[in-house]
């Protein structure tokens, strides 16, 4: 039999039973659409997170106190409950000796009550330097960020997030007002325009204060970390080594810090989210198999409904293989058309979601389209095979007398 005839004959059956065809197309297309949508969400999340990190700039080195390394078994220090030697403001200041470093933003973090005019809010506090604004590429809504004084000393000023501003000050002008943070007072210098999250906290709720005020407020010496903006990214590794040896020298020859590159963080998030997307995709493709089983079920019904026709085809010279092919092609056509419908639906819905929620980028990955199409076709073939075999094996005499 010619391929064109085979396709034509299968096509006539799809047209002949429109309700059945539409139902199966819907089932398959929902499966494919689910794959596209879920992977789009996963991929969108990955893009969002890595985008967040990328906005920090790829020239970034992050210095964290403590050695990120497994020491064989329990080290004496670990057993004695010793915490790593703190990373201090002086350590941060000393980094300016290294020539490839452009900006240094030490970070102290904590939470403290923020008060103004009898109103109080618990607010996440970031103690840092003016460089932080540039490193994070934040914009100010009004006023200015922190003044550019030395790390050790700074006037008591702060910049606040939009939400904390409206909660404490309402529609009044906040700039120039004195507010209380914990047991300290500071004057509001500006309001930050940023809306997203950074290092795990909501910028809109945060209060940013000079790092010296931060260490005083929380009464601790140690920095949470130091962010370092590197001038020339091709000398990243060299700079990393310089930082390590400098701090080692300052810490009596103990290498007790970890320096991570932004790239590494980005890479690991990328990997995590790739796995997540694939997991979502596989869960969604289960629905494709459900659709496949549905196709099998309906094809089995079709075989018994079309017994007389199968008997006739055998009587006029159809080989078993040809009967088999007719049913398999019918199943493939159903699953294939369903998959194409699903692709169109899935991509239109993600497009609609993109328009509806512009902040979150829904990105259906290319591979999801290919994989779902292939899985749909495969399930068509696999689940079409059993009914097709049954049709091919029918006894022609019984089939002819089966039903008219």
């Amino acid at each position, binding site marked *: 039999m010619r391929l064109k005839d085979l396709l034509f004959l299968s096509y006539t059956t799809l047209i002949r039973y429109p309700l059945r065809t539409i139902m199966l197309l819907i089932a398959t297309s929902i499966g494919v659409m689910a794959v596209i949508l879920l992977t789009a969400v996963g991929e969108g999340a990955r893009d969002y997170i890595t985008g967040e990190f990328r906005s920090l700039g790829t020239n970034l080195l992050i210095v964290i106190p403590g050695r990120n390394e497994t020491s064989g078994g329990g080290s004496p220090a670990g057993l004695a409950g010793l915490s790593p030697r703190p990373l201090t403001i002086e350590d941060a200041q000393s980094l300016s000796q290294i020539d490839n470093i452009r900006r240094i933003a030490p970070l102290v973090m904590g939470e403290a009550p923020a008060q103004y005019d009898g109103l109080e809010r618990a607010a996440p506090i970031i103690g840092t330097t003016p460089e932080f604004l540039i490193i994070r590429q934040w914009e100010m809504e009004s006023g200015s960020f922190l003044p550019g004084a030395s790390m050790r000393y700074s006037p008591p000023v702060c910049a606040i997030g939009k939400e904390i501003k409206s909660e404490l000050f309402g529609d009044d002008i906040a700039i120039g007002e004195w507010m209380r943070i914990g047991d300290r007072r500071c004057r509001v210098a500006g309001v930050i325009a940023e809306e997203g999250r950074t290092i795990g906290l909501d910028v809109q709720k945060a209060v940013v204060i000079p790092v010296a005020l931060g260490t005083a407020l929380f009464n601790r010496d140690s920095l949470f970390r130091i962010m370092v903006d590197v001038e020339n990214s091709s000398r990243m590794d060299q700079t990393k080594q310089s930082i390590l040896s400098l701090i080692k020298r300052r810490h009596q020859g103990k290498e007790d810090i970890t320096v991570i590159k932004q790239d590494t963080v980005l890479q690991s998030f990328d990997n995590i989210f790739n796995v997540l997307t694939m997991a979502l995709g596989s869960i969604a493709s289960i629905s494709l198999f459900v659709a496949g089983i549905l196709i099998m079920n309906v094809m089995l019904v079709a075989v018994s409904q079309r017994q007389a026709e199968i008997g006739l085809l*055998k*009587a006029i010279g159809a*080989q078993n293989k040809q009967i088999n092919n007719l049913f398999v092609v019918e199943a493939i056509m159903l699953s294939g058309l369903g998959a194409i419908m699903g692709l169109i639906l899935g991509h239109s819905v993600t497009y609609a979601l993109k328009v509806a929620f512009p902040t979150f980028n829904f990105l259906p990955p290319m591979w999801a389209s290919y994989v779902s199409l292939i899985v749909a076709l495969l399930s068509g073939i696999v689940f079409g095979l059993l009914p097709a075999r049954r049709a091919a094996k029918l006894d022609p005499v019984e089939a002819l007398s089966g039903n008219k």
Partner: protein
Amino acid sequence: MIRLEKLSREFQVGNQVVHALDEVDLVINENEYVSIMGVSGSGKSTLLNILGLLDTPTSGDYILSGINTSKMDDDEMAGIRSTKIGFVFQSFHLIPRLTAFENIEMPMILSGIHPKERSNMVNFALERVGLTDRSDHRPEQLSGGQRQRVAIARSIVMEPDVLLADEPTGNLDSTSGKEVVKLIEELNLSGLTLIVVTHDREMGERSNRLIRLKDGKVITDQSNT
């Protein structure tokens, strides 16, 4: 052309063995017009099914055009059905979603003949059964007699040697029944071997040779001259 030697066909019904055909010996020559009669259960349908290679005998041989068919596999039998045998059924067995033209085309589609060639042969067959103007009608748009004529056109489109008809007028009124009989007799006159299973005494007597079956055995085999 057709030779049956001690041909038997048994069916297992429950725990009982039914001899649908019991050691039948039969020779049918080229271009004969044979009718097979008998009450239901006499084995006439089984005989027709075996002649058409839709069924295989339990024992004995069926030699068609010098070839012993007993050792053929499904595909070889399908090949013979395609090229040498035409079937006409009581209930027409047209495919409802296809037009008359496409129904007639079916055997040629199955054997992979080029569409251009198919079209000529279908048109020729349509002309022979007098339905040229109905070629793009579906079965439901045709009368019973017309449907059977489409089925006949389909059975002859591959130019077979033998035409097997199972009660071809059974579902038709007498007028269209007569037309159908006339048509297949014309085909016989033009060289086709015609074997008809029928209840209809009148039709049985029109044939050149009348075989009566009872309990799987040939009880009379007479020539009508």
